[in-house]
């Protein structure tokens, strides 16, 4: 290349500022909910199950249908009639539909869809739907659900453990028999999700003329799910047009699981004959969208006396929640090739079990099975160090795959493409200044502070082999329909004035891929990135796509980026041919740069880029005869290394394998049990970096989420399956105060399997931070059983032991009622200025009782002392209509009775009972009561912090109104009297 000529400016590898940013910073992004909709578009709202497991006895939608603005109400009956159940990865007798059919299996499951003129009206109408449920026993904990006698989530399957597979590589049994030590550990990894700030958005429009669905959705792929949607709608793939918007407000895998709503809104559109739009709200997202599977892993390591691991034996139980939605159980099989981590471990035994439970279906979440797996591996590596009294970093170091071993075939079949792990470790220790960190720890410990250091080393897989899931089948089953590979496609178009535009099969959610594509294409064509218009709206009826299309598995840099490179090369070759003709040199002697195409050996002999491109449009007759007119080229890339699993179950699960080694120092406050990350060092080898700025963004972002997993984030379920994390005040995401600045280090070992040498980097630190922090906490407290998130409560229990039960008294959490989740108990006393007989009569009089029950609009007698009522009640920010049942039993007139009953409504359900005692006192009656209440559904999910107070208030209101009903205001006790009584002084 000629020195000093503009062609020497290359952009791949440079920290090019993002082309996406200006529009986003000005509020001119084009997210799904921002886009125009057709006049007449209707809006959907979904009634969801308050029960973790129940039969649907009946659904009465008549009142809702009559509400203002309501156009249609859909239940499972319509869905069953008009659609087919979603196809799954495994052929199992389970059925999953877009609305619950006959039974609900998790809190938050879609039960009824209301379609109305606007969203507010649709939500209003939900309150008027009456669903009668018959609650069923639940299976919430995966280990309980895996037991023989567990309640069955899908009775037709006959078991909750719907897949069991054993794998053996090398000679694991021999290795364990010969080992000096066996180190074993059981870990439990929680349910969590990176919860994008933008929820799901679907706008579905059924076109009756040709039986086609036109759907806008912020779907992120993979397009393996496109056939799942099309089949459920009973149309061919080409009759389901999926369009994705230019901008998406975060994905992290989560926006794959939008697909049931595509089917649901499409069906609704077909029924109403108008487009139907639905925007997910935060409660819907947290409770019902998706969660990374929680996993229980028992891992054993066969270890020599000097700390070398000769074999791993995994026993994994992965919890997929209530349905096995495609592409589940991906998280269990995607990292299969990496089960031996970055270590030279030739022997491996694996048992994988999938279990279903009464929780939200699991799905794609950043990390996709790796955070779970590495939590087990790297905790065990640390335990080896502790048990053998070795330095944890020495244990890692001794087991790393040696330099010069690449490409390296792991025990389970992954082909690690390149790397130099010992060198990376060395750089991390030196440049991260481990020595100083150790001094910091020693000083802290000398002062009696709780300080620990944790380490971990992981392989980050990039770009999944679309055949990895078939590893779950036996070799014989696989032979009938072998699967493997990964196709990506990009189109580069040059218009008549020489402008270049690019479309691609990726749906970025903030990764800046438009910029990276512009860099790649600009370099090939001698232009600048801001001269390339990248349009990443995708349309399945107009753009190139295949099943692997989408944004997931950190695939971009080794897939779509390569397709763009190839498409640009084709454009370059074509324009070089055109230019060569006019420059009168051969094609090989043509260069591109500075917006010109020129003779390499004589840059002054040049033609402007747009002139060469223009010739293909304005005067195709002038082109060399072998060239077609126009300039529009599709680049296709399908790496040959991604083969289907071998007969011995070895599978190259991904195309690229990055390496990272992290260490951190943490300090625990002995009083608050808060874990503070003092220093965090993260070392990456991700091959060649296409844009270091974007790489840093991926590292900082996955690091931030890693901190969330380690310290804060968990979807919590009560034992009865109630969901308790329905707001961002319950599901805690770290903020700027909780995420420290990591020290980021790099080395670059190019991948030989991808032309640009880059490796996926999208997920890395969410795999390392949880276990690295856990190892540091283990080091600080000298404990072995470490569970994330390391909340203060959990860490406090590790320091001080479990907290003692609170003393008995008002409104303490109830001692476990059967199957209880969010159970509350309390007691109270009210003085009523009437005789006990008078109070008693009121309780037994339906009309008077109606006036006593708070918020009661209507009360019907359904039997002896048995009533049905309609009430409106509120807890904190939520208020809604409920169907109430009230029954009086164990009557001992006029002294005592048991009141029991329940509430059911769109906001949730509750069951409770209480004992009421009446005692004559000072010419009136002292009414004393005790109660126990269990609450589930939306109220439990969002109002957890307020439930106790609200329940106490409601019960108290009941008795105050009772007093009012029998002839006067209640005698309020002063706080002084209450205090005295609480202290056992006074009456």
């Amino acid at each position, binding site marked *: 290349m000629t020195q000093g000529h503009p062609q020497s400016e290359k952009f791949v590898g440079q920290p090019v500022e993002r082309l996406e*940013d200006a529009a986003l910073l*000005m509020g001119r992004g084009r997210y799904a909910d921002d886009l125009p909709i057709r006049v007449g578009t209707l809006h959907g709202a979904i009634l969801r199950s308050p029960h973790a497991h129940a039969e649907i006895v009946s659904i009465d939608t008549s009142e809702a249908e009559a509400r203002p603005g309501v156009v249609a109400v859909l239940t499972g009956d319509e869905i069953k009639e008009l659609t087919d159940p979603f196809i799954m990865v495994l052929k199992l007798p389970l059925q999953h539909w877009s609305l619950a059919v006959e039974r609900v299996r998790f809190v938050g499951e879609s039960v009824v869809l209301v379609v109305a003129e606007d969203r507010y009206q649709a939500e209003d109408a939900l309150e008027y739907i009456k669903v009668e449920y018959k609650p069923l026993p639940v299976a919430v904990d995966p280990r309980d659900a895996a037991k023989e006698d567990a309640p069955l989530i899908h009775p037709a399957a006959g078991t909750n453990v719907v897949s069991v597979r054993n794998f053996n590589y090398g000679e694991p049994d021999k290795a364990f028999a010969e080992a000096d030590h066996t180190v074993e550990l059981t870990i439990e990894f929680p349910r969590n999700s990176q919860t*994008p700030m933008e929820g799901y958005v679907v706008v579905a429009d059924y076109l009756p003329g040709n039986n086609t669905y036109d759907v806008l959705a912020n779907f992120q792929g993979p397009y393996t799910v496109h056939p799942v949607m099309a089949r459920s709608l009973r149309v061919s793939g080409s009759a389901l047009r999926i369009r994705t918007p230019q901008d998406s407000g975060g994905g992290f895998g989560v926006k794959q699981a939008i697909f049931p709503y595509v089917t649901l809104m499409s069906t609704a559109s077909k029924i109403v004959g108008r487009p139907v739009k639905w925007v997910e709200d935060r409660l819907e997202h947290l409770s019902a969208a998706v969660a990374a599977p929680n996993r229980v892993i028992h891992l054993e390591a066969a270890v020599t006396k000097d700390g070398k691991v000769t074999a791993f034996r995994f026993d994994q139980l992965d919890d997929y929640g209530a349905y096995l939605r495609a592409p589940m159980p991906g998280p269990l099989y995607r990292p299969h090739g990496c089960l031996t981590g970055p270590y030279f471990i030739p022997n491996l035994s694996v048992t994988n079990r999938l279990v279903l439970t009464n929780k939200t279906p699991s799905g794609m979440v950043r990390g996709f099975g790796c955070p779970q797996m590495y939590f087990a591996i790297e905790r065990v590596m640390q335990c080896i160090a502790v048990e053998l009294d070795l330095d944890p970093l020495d244990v890692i170091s001794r087991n790393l795959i040696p330099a010069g071993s690449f490409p390296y075939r792991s025990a389970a079949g992954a082909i690690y493409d390149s790397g130099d792990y010992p060198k990376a470790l060395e750089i991390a220790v030196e440049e991260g200044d481990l020595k100083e960190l150790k001094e910091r720890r020693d000083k802290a410990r000398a002062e009696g502070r709780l300080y620990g250091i944790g380490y971990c080393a992981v392989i980050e897989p990039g770009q999944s082999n679309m055949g990895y899931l078939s590893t779950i089948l036996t070799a014989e089953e696989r032979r009938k329909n072998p699967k493997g590979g990964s196709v990506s496609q990009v189109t580069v178009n040059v218009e008549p004035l020489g402008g270049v535009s690019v479309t691609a099969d990726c749906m970025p959610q903030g990764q800046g891929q438009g910029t990276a594509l512009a860099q790649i294409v600009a370099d090939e064509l001698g232009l600048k990135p801001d001269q390339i218009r990248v349009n990443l709206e995708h349309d399945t009826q107009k753009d190139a796509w295949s099943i692997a299309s989408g944004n997931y598995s950190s695939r971009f840099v080794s897939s779509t980026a390569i397709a763009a490179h190839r498409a640009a090369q084709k454009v370059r070759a074509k324009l070089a041919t055109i230019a060569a003709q006019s420059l009168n040199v051969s094609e090989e002697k043509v260069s591109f740069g500075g917006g010109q195409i020129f003779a390499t050996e004589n840059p002054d002999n040049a033609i402007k880029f747009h002139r060469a491109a223009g010739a293909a449009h304005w005067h195709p007759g002038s082109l060399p005869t072998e060239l077609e007119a126009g300039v529009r080229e599709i680049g296709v890339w399908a790496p040959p290394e991604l083969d289907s699993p071998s007969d011995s179950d070895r599978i190259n699960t991904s195309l690229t394998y990055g390496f990272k080694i992290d260490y951190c120092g943490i300090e625990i406050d002995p009083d608050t049990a808060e874990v503070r990350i003092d220093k965090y060092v993260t070392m990456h080898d991700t091959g060649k970096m296409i844009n270091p700025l974007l790489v840093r963004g991926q590292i900082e972002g996955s690091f931030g989420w890693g901190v969330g997993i380690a310290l804060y984030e968990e979807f919590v379920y009560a034992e009865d399956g109630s969901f308790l994390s329905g707001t961002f005040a319950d599901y805690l995401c770290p903020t700027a105060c909780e995420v420290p600045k990591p020290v980021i280090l790099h080395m670059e070992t190019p991948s030989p399997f991808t032309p640009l040498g880059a490796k996926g980097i999208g997920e890395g630190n969410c795999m390392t931070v949880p276990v690295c922090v856990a190892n540091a906490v283990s080091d600080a407290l000298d404990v072995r059983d470490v569970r994330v998130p390391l909340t203060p409560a959990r860490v406090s229990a590790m320091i001080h032991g479990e907290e003692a039960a609170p003393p008995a008294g008002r409104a303490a959490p109830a001692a476990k009622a059967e199957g209880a989740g969010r159970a509350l108990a309390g007691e109270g006393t009210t003085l009523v200025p009437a005789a006990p007989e008078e109070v008693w009569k009121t309780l037994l009089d339906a009309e008077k009782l109606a006036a006593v029950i708070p918020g009661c609009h209507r009360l019907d007698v359904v039997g002896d002392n048995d009533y049905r009522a309609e009430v409106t009640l509120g807890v904190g920010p939520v208020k809604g209509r409920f169907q109430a049942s009230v029954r009086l039993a164990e009557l001992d007139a006029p002294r005592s009775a048991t009141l029991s009953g329940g509430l059911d409504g769109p906001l949730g359900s509750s069951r409770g009972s209480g004992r009421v005692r009446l005692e004559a006192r000072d010419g009136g009656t002292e009414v004393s009561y005790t109660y126990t209440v269990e609450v589930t559904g939306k109220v439990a999910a969002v109002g957890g912090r307020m439930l106790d107070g609200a329940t106490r208030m409601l019960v108290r209101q009941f008795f105050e109104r009772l007093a009012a009903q029998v002839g006067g205001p209640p005698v309020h006790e002063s706080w002084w009297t209450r205090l005295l009584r609480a202290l056992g002084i006074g009456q």
Partner: protein
Amino acid sequence: MPRLSREARHPVTIILNGKRASGYAEPRLLLVDFLRREIGATGSHVGCEHGVCGACTVRVDGKAVRSCLMYAVQADGRRVDTVEGLGDDSSDLTALQSAFRREHALQCGYCTPGVLMSISDFLERNPKPTETEIREMLSGHICRCTGYAGMVRAVLDVVSNGGAAESPKSE
């Protein structure tokens, strides 16, 4: 304030980014829904609908507020500033917006409009904050993409170079 009828749509006029903007709102219509659906100012985003995430932050009479916790009718007659009012076109980003781009302080960009509005309000009141103060202010926002590192760098950068509002010097 006049008594409003629950079912009726009431005229609401705001000064949006310095210009009059009018529409109709039922009393229960949230300010953010009014801005997005009635006025068509879609720059402000809805992230949680319960005032925790900060994505919908706008400035009402100069003060940063959550537009998901305020009704449109409450904004009637008041000045409302949103992200759309910060810069005019791509060549004219404010110093803060430019710093966000330079420091890679945004990825998906969904939380960014609210973050920018909070910072704008904050820096007017506290032009020389420390990093700790910046982090505390940012803790009113949830961002799931960036780990906040770029945002902190961007604000520090703006603070050390003299202010958020003016456009950067041309290079």
